[in-house]
Structures are given as structure tokens and as C-alpha cells.
């Protein structure tokens, strides 16, 4: 069985990335990733990758985390507000696209969004089934729906943006 240090080295960055895509909040993503690994210490998983991602996704849904996140953001805001330089045009476009994609992701059903994000981290259908509890036979259909809806929602966001400008 891998040590917690090995798990951390192997899975922390993908987990953090998935959580950031899921939440759109890096601080919150880092908090949840941290908590996920703390739980892995308390209960070492046999099949770590699906376990870690499943726990992390459960924590995202945990409303109890919200209070901690809000407290942290208040704390960091004092310094962040004065250190961010104005973004260049391309950086602005990148951030704007990032925002629109996250907004489109937010429009998906939870299970669609989670399966899409797990697939983006390289999970195969067996691992997705293990992490989400969904039947393997239903994953293809769910992914197809999730991809279509994400694209359609993103296009809607783009149209709204052009209409507003």
C-alpha cells in the first residue's frame, strides 16, 4: 500500500485541479484537497485514486465547509486586493473564458459535472463507477449528455456576452 507521501505526490495536483474546476475557488479547492488527504491518513484507502476523488467530491457538497471558506477569504482579501496587477488583454480573455466555462459547468447536473471532471483527469469507466457509484454501463450515456450540455451552455454564455457588449 502506498504511503501518504506517495499518494500526495501522485494525486495532489490532479485532485486540486479537479477541485478547482469543480468549485472555481482555489482556496476552497486547496482546503478540500487538504482535508481529503487528512482523511486518507485516518483511513488509508485500498484503491486510492477513486477513493480520494470520491471523498473530495463529497466534501465539495458538504455545506459545512462553506463557513470555513468564507472565513479564509475574508482573511486573504486584505492582501490580495492590493497585489493583483491589471490583467493584460490576453490574460483577460483567458480569465473570461475560464469564468464562462465554470459558469457552464455550474449549469450541469452534479453527476454529469463530476463524471466529466473525473474523465478529464484520466479516469476510465471502471474508476468513474467506483468513485461515483454509477453503473459502468450508464457512464457513456451520462458523459455524452454532459459534454453536449457543457458545450451548449458555453455557447449560450458566449451569445449572452456578445449581446451585452
Amino acid at each position, binding site marked *: 500500500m502506498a*504511503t*501518504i*507521501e*506517495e499518494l*500526495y505526490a501522485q494525486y495532489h*495536483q*490532479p485532485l*486540486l*485541479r479537479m477541485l*478547482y*474546476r469543480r468549485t472555481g475557488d*482555489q482556496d476552497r479547492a*486547496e*482546503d478540500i*484537497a*487538504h*482535508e481529503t488527504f*487528512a482523511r486518507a*491518513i*485516518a483511513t488509508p484507502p485500498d484503491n486510492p485514486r477513486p477513493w480520494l476523488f470520491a471523498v473530495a467530491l463529497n466534501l465539495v457538497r458538504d455545506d459545512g465547509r462553506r463557513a*470555513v471558506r468564507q*472565513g*479564509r477569504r475574508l*482573511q*486573504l482579501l*486584505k*492582501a*490580495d486586493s*492590493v*497585489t493583483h496587477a491589471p490583467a493584460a488583454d490576453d490574460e483577460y480573455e*483567458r480569465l473570461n*473564458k*475560464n469564468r464562462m*466555462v*465554470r459558469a*457552464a*459547468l455550474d449549469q450541469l447536473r452534479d453527476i454529469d459535472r463530476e463524471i*466529466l*471532471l473525473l*474523465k*478529464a*483527469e*484520466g*479516469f*476510465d*469507466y471502471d474508476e468513474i463507477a467506483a468513485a461515483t457509484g454509477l453503473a459502468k454501463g*450508464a*457512464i*457513456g*450515456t*451520462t*458523459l*455524452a*449528455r*454532459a*459534454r*453536449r450540455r*457543457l*458545450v451548449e451552455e*458555453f455557447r449560450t454564455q458566449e451569445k449572452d456576452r456578445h449581446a451585452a457588449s
Partner: protein
Amino acid sequence: MPHLDDGQLTALLDGELTSAERAEAESHLANCPACRELLDETRRFFREAGALVDAVQLPTDSSSRPAGPNTPAGLPDRRTAEPPTRRGGGLTAWRSLGWAATIVVAVGLGWFASDLRYRAPVAAPISDLKSDRADQAVMTAKSAEPTATTPAPATHPVPSDAARAAGNGAISRPEEAGTRTPAIQAPAPEAGLVSNNAVAKDEVGKLAESGGERREAAERAVVGSTDPQAGRPAPAALAAQAPAAAGAVQTTEADLRRQRSNVRTVTLEEAVRSLGGTIRLVDGMVPARVEVVESAEPGTRRIRVVYFDPPGRELWLDQARQLADSRDAYRALDDRAGLLVGDTIAIAGPAGRQTLNWIDQTGLRLGLTGFLPADSLRGLARRVR
């Protein structure tokens, strides 16, 4: 064969069909324009959705491109995957910004001031570090014996670490500058006591030459370290160390060893339990070991996560949760430092040693200590999660 649905076509694109299923699907596609059209549409969504998800990258890791998972598997017009590139290590991702109000205080003030007394290591080239580590290994063997009296090199950062590491089964020395090798191992039963006793008895031998109160204090330290309560020093032993907080006293190896006799290496799991189910770590750094430190203030036991910075010097992340029986002691410390939640207090130690102390939103007391400029420590403190 009936028409293929988008679930089957998605599984085909994802490479999730068995060879028999794939052959059957491809055979059907060869003769069914409607399914080919649906395949093309499914592939467009596949690519576009993959590109959209890939566009969302961590702000501190925007260069990483995990293109592979969103690439159609084994199909003729497979997307050309951009090779993943990743910035090296979390250390480059330090977010450089100041934190809350910072107060610079004189040498030795603060909660963790009792740990600041020992001499600072001089940043040494790798070859010198290796040499030091060889010395450390020799000292480890000697210190582990109850009668050993070998003094450590005066410039060594924390010579008793090696002794404790040997006794506790922890391997925690940096192999090379810049390399952070995780090496937290479960201590052997009672091994920590044996190691601590050896160090403390050695301490008695050294202090016997000076006699007087110092000898008496050292003997009390031995009594403390042999406390059957899992190595926890008795209050008398802790009290004997209290004067150390002044920090202006010339440090001796004897002082250092007596101080370190109240430190024992524990597993990360034990540390998590001790702190109530969670522990703070520095994001992007791999701990070398975790220790329990009994401080001079009774009841203010804290957890220390030890890292090594690139030159191989120790970096400590101390953390303690206020206990019911130690509330008064903590309140006194907080009052003295004027520390509120959200504030950071910087304590300058000898030879460039710095400590940042703060209280997080959950009431956890944290201290980050290292031979780094205060601004660098603040950058690291922002990565404490």
C-alpha cells in the same frame, strides 16, 4: 444490429469498448450513414467539451495541460495532443504578497521563543552538508548509548535530531540540496524514550562539570523524559526549562540537548489525532518528519512538522490547539504578543532565524520558523493549508 446510441459512441471514442464490441460498432458504422453522422456530432462535442474543461487551469499551474484524457481513443482523426508541460514544483508557485499586519519584535519574544536559543546553522554548500550529515551519523550512534558524552559540532543545526531519528526509526535527513524526500515512519515502541533518555543522561554528564542549579535542572529533565506517560516530561522538568525563553543567553550544546529532550518524533497519523483530526501542512512541500514538542508552558504541547529548505536547513511548522487546561497560559502569551486572529507576528532570532506566529480562523496557533527572510516566511505561511 440496431443503431448505435450516443452512449455507445462515447464509449467508442473513450476507448472503453471491448475489442468485440468495437469491431461490431465499426462494422455497423461502415454501413449506416445516420450513425456515422451521430458519431461525428458526438466527436465534436467530445473535443469541444474536452478543450473547455482543459481551459480551466489552476491559477498557479496554468501551464499544465492534461490533454490526454480528453483525446478520442484510437480513432483516425485523433486530436494532436499538446505535450503536458508543468512548472517544476510548488515552490515556484509561491504567491508573493504580504499578509496581515506584521509586528517585528525583539529577539526571543513569543510563544515559541523557547525553541530559538540554539545556534543558527550557517548555510553550507552541499559538500559541507554531506560532511555534516556524516558527523551526524557518527554522533547518532554514540548518542544512542546511555553513557555517550560526545559533543556535537558547534555549528551543527540540530545535532540531536539525528539521535532522535535513530532512536525513533525516522529517516529525515535531506539527501541533496533541494530534494525533499518523504520519510515519516512509525516509531518503534518506547524507542523515543530510549533515545530521549540517552540524550538527557548525556546532558547530565556534561552538566555535572558545571554543577549547581544547572546540574539539578538537567537531572529533573531526565526524570521528566522518563515519565511513563509516553515520554511527556513532568511539570518540574518543563519548569526547569522556562528561563530559556529569554533567548539572549549564550547557547550551549547542553542547553540544546536538554531542550530537545522534550521533543519526540511521531507518525503523521498520531499528530493528526493529537490535533483533533486535522493538521496544517505547507502546500507543495513534503514533510521530513513530525514531532510532538512539550514547551515550557505546562499543557501547551504542540505539533511540529519539520521540512527542509533547499539548502538543507530545517523549517518548522508548529501548531497547537488551545486546550481547556491551558487556556490561561495561552491567554497570557497572546496578551503579551498582542496577537489577534488574522495578525502575524514576526520574531527575529539569532543568525537570521525568523519565526512567524499567527492564529488561524479555527483558533489553531501556528508558528513557522526557519532561516529565511520574514517575507519568504510570509510567502510560505500563505501556503499553509
